[in-house]
């Protein structure tokens, strides 16, 4: 998977590139819009991660030129501008997704994977992670043979974690995707924590393999094998 990262801040670019590499991507970085556009016109990429604020030729301009040329490569736009008008502007210019700085790397990874999945989507009706079985149709959950009763919220939360299994998800991602809460200021963290605690008790109590793990300072991960 080749990913083009157009980002002018060297530190951010280096960190993201290294993160992407360890997540199995083959990242190529460009420091300016000019350079990024040059690379895009010569090579092919599976996904483009594009910073909005770039020196000289900004991200939106690169994006417009790219789309005007008929390219369908999925583009994730990174920006510190989170006003609704900015989002609309970004998406109108042809971005496939939009991520507001500062963000958790886990979220960037999740978004990039979601963009790539969009191409070959078709969500499973049943999902199996270790001995955990999720049935989306009957909305039932089981660990091995043990049926687990969940509230609708808990089921949605588990579904979201399962969709991103082996990936870390942040509270912010959960708030937006499960609670449909677009406002970052709404105090939902405690609510999410309590729901997660409930979910954990129902799934993992008495089991040797703990499926839901906390990644300190970042969020949570649903994983079948014991991780660090």
């Amino acid at each position, binding site marked *: 998977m080749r990913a083009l990262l157009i980002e002018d801040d060297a530190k951010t670019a280096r960190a993201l590139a290294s993160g992407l590499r360890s997540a199995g991507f083959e990242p190529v970085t460009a420091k300016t819009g000019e350079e990024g556009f040059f690379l895009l016109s010569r090579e092919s990429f599976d996904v483009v991660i594009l910073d909005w604020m770039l020196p000289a030729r900004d991200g939106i301009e690169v994006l417009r030129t790219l789309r005007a040329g008929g390219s369908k490569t999925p583009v994730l736009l990174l920006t510190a501008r989170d006003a609704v008008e900015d989002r609309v502007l970004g998406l109108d210019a042809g971005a496939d997704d939009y991520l507001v700085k500062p963000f958790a790397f886990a979220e960037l990874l999740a978004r990039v994977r979601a963009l790539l999945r969009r191409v070959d989507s078709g969500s499973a009706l049943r999902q199996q992670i270790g001995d955990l079985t999720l049935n989306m149709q009957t909305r039932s959950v089981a660990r091995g043979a043990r049926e687990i009763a969940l509230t609708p919220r808990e089921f949605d939360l588990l579904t979201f974690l399962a969709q991103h299994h082996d990936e870390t998800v942040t509270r912010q991602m959960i708030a937006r995707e499960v609670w449909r809460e677009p406002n*970052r200021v709404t*105090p939902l*963290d405690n*609510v999410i924590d309590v729901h997660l605690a409930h979910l954990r008790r129902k799934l993992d109590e008495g089991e040797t393999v703990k499926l839901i793990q906390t990644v*300190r*300072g970042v969020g949570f991960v649903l994983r079948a094998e014991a991780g660090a």
Partner: protein
Amino acid sequence: MKAWWLRRSVRLRLALWYAAATALVLIAFAWFVYEVIEHRLAAEIDRQLRIDFDLVEPQLSLDTEGRVDWTLRGSHGDEGFSRLSAWFEVWSEKRELLLRHWPVPESNIKNVLPPPRTSTLSFATVELERGLFLRVMERPGRVQGRSVIIRVFRDETEMRRTLREIVEVSVLGFPLAGALAAIGGYLVATRSLAPLDAMARQARRITSESLSKRLPNLNPSDELGRLATVFNETLTRLEASFAELQRFTADASHELRSPLTALRAVGEVALRDGNDPAMLRETIGSMLEEAERLTDLVDALLTLARMDATKADATREEVNIAGLLEEIRDQFEVLTAEKGQTLAVTSNPNVVVQTDRTLLRLALVNLVHNAIQHSPSSSKVSLAAARRPGGVKISVSDSGRGIAPEYHEKIFEPFFRVDKARSRSGGGGVGLGLAIAKRAIERSGGRIIVESDLNRGSVFRIELPWSSQLATIPATT
């Protein structure tokens, strides 16, 4: 022209206005005087003509050959008149000249009037020759039984000269009067505007460093006093918002620097003596937590700042209050259940207001979160909405420790915490929750107050109009 006019000083403009007004009044007055005098003089001449006629007619006689003759008769007082200035003609009804008596030899006057056209009384003014204006009266008369037309003349030159003098005096006098008015106006304007100049000089001396100074106000009831009062009130507000801003900046920098300090300290220490991977993990986790705290803080600050800056045409929609309250309850029920609290909602199901749902929800969510945080286990938090005249009132009550009355205003200030040690609640846990709630409600045209006392719990009351004209509230943080 207009631009030129507006560039002049007030005092010059006032002076010119004075001059113009004075000139206008003088011209009107002079014209009136001129008209009156002219009328009076003309009437006097006509009266003289009648007298002349009455003097002349009886002194006319017919001689033996039937010619008209003028014999001086009567009282001696009339002699002077007759000899010097009697000026008349006698015409027959067939328009033949019977007698002509002019005070100067006939040959000296080139023009002669044509014979009278009618035999009725008539007045006319004629210019017999250049500069010689005469008033003429024609009137039928009788000379010893014979019908004649007598024409009497009077010289108008004297009257015309008088009138011309009036005009001359006026023309000379107007500019003088106008100039005097202008000078007077300038002096008066200078004098009355002097306090204004002084005020401007004093106001200039009041800068951001000396905002506590005020303009001297000698007489609060006159115009300048009112101006000074208004100016001083503005200064007071400005000073208050400056102080507010300084406090806010100090608080914000403290709140921003604390996580940054922690971030650096933890990182540096780990770098110096961290060889244990588990310890490094721990360190990075702690640094990420601080970064998250900073992110939350920046988000909350931006939300607060944006609420001041956004245009007032934000989205308005019909919001069902009961529905909104229940939605919030559903969201937070899990928290209250965890603490054994009850979260009760009482609302008329049909209360609907026109407002920005996002803003109202943001305010309520912060208030409810705050209430849950500050209420002990197994207590009650209630949310209630009811109609009130002109709108709706919503209350959020908790059973917490309460807030002392002296803090009732302050708790809505950014970063204010009653208990400094017990930090982070609401607003993403950065001490901005109540400030955000207050700003959001005020943006929706409503207001929010707190009723509370120590150990009695707190009630936050929101009053909203039915339809909120999203107001641009004054920028006091």
